[in-house]
C-alpha cells in the first residue's frame, strides 16, 4: 500500500517537472528577498494541475454525470428526460433486491474474515528472511496475479458436480459428497466465498507480512520471559501490533466485498435460483443488459453511498478507539 502511495505521489511531480510552467516557477524561486512561505499562490496548483486534470476528466466529471444520469431516463438521441427518483425506486423495489443486498453482506463478511484469517496464518508461517521463503511467498501470491477470468474457469472445473469432479473426488476419499458446489442453491454461496478467500488471502498475507516487520521484536522476548506460550504471543503481541494493518485491510476488503462482481458473474451469474445474486450482478442486469443507463447509474450511486458510509463508520470507530 505504501508503495502505491509513493508511486502516485511521484507521478504528478515527475509529469510536471519538464513542463514550461515548472521553469517559470523556478524563475520565481530564484528571485532574491522572497519570503520562504509566500510563493506565488498558484505554484502548488501548477504542480498539481496534471494530476487534477486527469482526475477531473476521468473521475470527477464521470462521477458527476453518473449522478445526473441517475435521475434521468437516458436516451441520448431523443434527449435525456428527468424522472426524479424513479430509477432509485426501480433498483430498490426490483425483484430480489433485498436478497441481493443480504447476499452481498454475507459474501463480503465471509470473504473478508476468511481472507484475513488465512492471510494472517500464511503470513505467520512465511515470516522471515530465508531465501526459500521468498520463493514460497511468491508461489503463495500467485492467485492474486492470475486474471480472475482464469481463476473462475479453473474453479468451475474443480467444482464439477459429479463424482469424478476434482474436489468431489477428494471429498469422496473421506466418504463425503458428491456436492453440487456452485450448481446447488444450498452450497453455491459457500463455494463462491471459498474461491474469493483463495484469491484474496495472499493479498492480505503480503500486507500483513509488511506489518509484521514493524512489530517490536523486544515485545516477543519480553512476553517469552514472562512465560507466554506461542499462541499467547501471537494473540497478545502480534495481533495488537497489527491493529492498524487490520483496519486498513478491513476497509479495503469491505469495499472490494461490496463491489464483488466478476467471480459471481463468471461462476454463477447470480444463479442457481438467485442464491448468489449480489447487488452488482443485479445492477448489471437491470442497467446494462436492459440498456437502461439511468437505472445502472442509480444502482452505482447507491453502492457508492453504502461504501462511503461504511468507510466513514470504520474511520470514526478507529478514531474513538485511539483516543
Amino acid at each position, binding site marked *: 500500500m505504501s508503495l502505491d502511495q509513493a508511486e502516485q505521489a511521484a507521478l504528478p511531480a515527475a509529469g510536471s517537472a519538464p513542463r514550461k510552467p515548472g521553469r517559470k516557477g523556478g524563475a520565481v524561486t530564484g528571485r532574491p528577498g522572497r519570503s520562504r512561505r509566500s510563493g506565488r*499562490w*498558484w505554484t*502548488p*496548483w501548477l504542480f498539481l494541475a496534471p494530476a*487534477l*486534470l486527469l482526475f*477531473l*476528466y476521468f473521475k*470527477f*466529471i464521470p462521477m*458527476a454525470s453518473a449522478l445526473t444520469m441517475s435521475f434521468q431516463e*437516458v*436516451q*441520448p*438521441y*431523443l*434527449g435525456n428526460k428527468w424522472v426524479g427518483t424513479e430509477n432509485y425506486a426501480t433498483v430498490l423495489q426490483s*425483484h430480489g433486491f433485498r436478497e441481493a443486498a443480504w447476499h452481498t453482506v454475507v459474501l463480503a463478511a465471509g470473504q473478508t474474515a476468511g481472507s484475513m484469517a488465512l492471510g494472517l496464518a500464511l503470513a505467520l508461517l512465511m515470516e522471515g528472511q530465508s531465501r526459500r521463503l521468498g520463493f514460497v511467498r511468491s508461489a503463495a501470491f500467485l492467485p492474486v496475479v492470475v486474471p480472475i477470468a482464469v481463476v473462475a474457469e479453473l474453479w*468451475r472445473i474443480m*467444482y*464439477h*458436480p*459429479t463424482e*469424478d469432479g476434482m474436489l468431489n473426488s477428494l471429498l469422496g476419499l473421506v466418504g463425503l459428497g458428491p456436492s453440487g458446489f*456452485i*450448481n*446447488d*442453491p444450498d452450497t453455491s454461496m459457500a463455494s463462491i466465498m471459498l474461491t474469493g478467500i483463495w484469491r484474496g488471502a495472499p493479498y492480505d498475507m503480503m500486507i500483513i507480512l509488511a506489518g509484521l516487520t514493524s512489530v517490536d521484536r523486544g515485545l516477543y522476548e519480553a512476553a517469552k520471559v514472562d512465560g507466554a506460550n506461542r499462541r499467547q504471543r501471537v494473540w497478545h503481541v502480534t495481533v495488537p501490533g497489527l491493529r492498524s494493518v487490520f483496519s486498513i485491510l478491513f476497509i479495503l476488503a469491505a469495499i472490494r466485498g461490496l463491489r464483488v462482481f466478476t467471480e459471481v*458473474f463468471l*461462476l*454463477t*451469474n*447470480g*444463479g*442457481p*435460483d*438467485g442464491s448468489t445474486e449480489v447487488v452488482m450482478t443485479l445492477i448489471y*442486469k437491470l442497467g446494462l*443488459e*436492459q*440498456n437502461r*443507463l439511468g437505472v445502472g447509474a442509480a444502482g452505482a450511486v447507491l453502492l457508492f453511498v453504502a461504501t462511503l458510509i461504511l468507510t466513514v463508520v470504520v474511520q470514526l470507530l478507529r478514531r474513538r478507539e485511539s483516543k
Partner: protein
Amino acid sequence: MKRSRWVGAGVLASALVLTSCSSGPAGVDAKQNSKAPLELWTRTTPGGPGEQGALKLAAAFEKATGYKVEVTAIFDDFETKLQQRAAQKKLPDIVMNDVTQLGAMHSQGLLREIDLDRIKDSGQIIGQGLDSGKSVDGKQYGLPYSAQASALLIRKDWRQKLKLDVPQNWDDFAAMAKAFTTQDPDGDGKKNTAGLAAPLSTKRGYASWYFSNFLWAAGGDFIAEAGKGTYKPAMTSEASVKAMQWFRDLGCKDKAIQPGAVTMDTPPTNETFEAGRTGMFVVGPYLLPRFDETLGKDKYEVVPMPKGPKDATVLAEGGSVYLMAGSDNQAGQDAFAGFAVSAEGQKTGMAGATGYTVQLPVNKTVDVSQVRTDPRWKTYAQAYEDSGRYAPSIPNWTPVRQATADTVNALMADCGLNTEAKLGELDKQLADILKEQGIAAS
C-alpha cells in the same frame, strides 16, 4: 488559501462548461445527399470472418448500385458505442445487428421507419422474417438479412450403437436422452455421459433462450398477445406448465441433462458435446463448422426437432438491417436494405466456406442448396421456414428473457421447488414488466 480554492472551483466550472455537449433538436431530417458515403456498423468481431462477409456484401452493393459504403465492425460494447454516437447526434447510416435489438433501438428513437414500397424485392421476404422487423405498433423498423433456427444435433455413432431411431416425438426424445445417460453409449464402461446438452445459466437469459424451443413446441408461451399490441403473461397456462414439467423431469428425474448445466452458458455446453459427454444438442447452424472440426462430420447428424405436444416450433433468430435516424442519404439506406434482402444480395451473403453474413436466406426465391450443397443446411432452412418463430418485438424483450431465465434456472437447479407456485410468481413479475413497458392487456 481562500483564493486558491476559488481558482480550483473556476477550473472545475470551466472544464464542465467545455465538456458539456451541446444538445440540438433530435431526429431532424438532415439535408439529403445521395453521393454521401453510407456508414455501416455491423456487430461482429473486427478482423474476423463476419467482417470479411460484411465487406464482401458492401463491395457487391457498391458495384451493383454505385453508392459508397464504409464498413465498421464492432463486437464488444456495440450498444454502448451506438449510445455514444447517439449523444453526438451522429448515428451511422446503417446498422446490422441482432433482430432482438429492434425494441430497444426503436424506443430510443434511433431508427427511422422503413417504407416497404421503396425497398426493392421486399415482397420476396419470408413472412415471419418480415414480421420480426415490425415494432409493437405494427410499423416496419428493421429488415432481416439473415435467419437461423434451431435443429437437433445427435451423436450418430451413439444412436446406432444403442440401435435407436431418430426421435419423432417428445417421448422418443426423452427416451433417447435417458438411454444416452444410462446405457454407456461411448462404451468406456463409465457412467459419464448425459443425454441432452443444455446451457441453463441465467447469463444473458440463456436458460430462457434454450427452453423457448420446448415451450413453444408444447403450445405454451412466455407472454401471449392479447390484441391491439398488448400482451399478458402466459407461463401459468396449462401448456406452459406441462412443458416446464416435462423439461424438469428430463433433468430432475431422468438426470439426462449434463451435470452443472445450471451454471453453464454456451461455451462450456458446446464443450460437453464435442468432448463426448453429451449426445443431443438443440442449436443453430452456426456451430456446424466448429463441430465438424472438433468432433468430426461423421460423428453427428442434424435432424429437425421432433414434434412436441402441439407442433415442432423452434426458436428463430437472425440479423436485421436497421436504417438509422438522421441520415443524409436516405435513398442510399433504402438501396442497401433492398440489396441485402434481394436474391443477389442473399446469395452474395451466403457465399464462401467461412466469412458469410447470411446463415439462412430470408428471400423466398433463394434456395439454400443453390449455394450450399451440404444437405444439413437444407434441414435448417426447412426448420426455419416451417417452424421458425421469433421472440415478439416488444419495446424491451431483455427483462422478459431475464425473468424467465431466472425461473427456469431455479426450477432446474432445485428439484424440490413447486413448479406451479414458481411459475405463478414468474407471471406476476412478467405482468409488472409488461405494465412498465406500457403493453399490458388490461
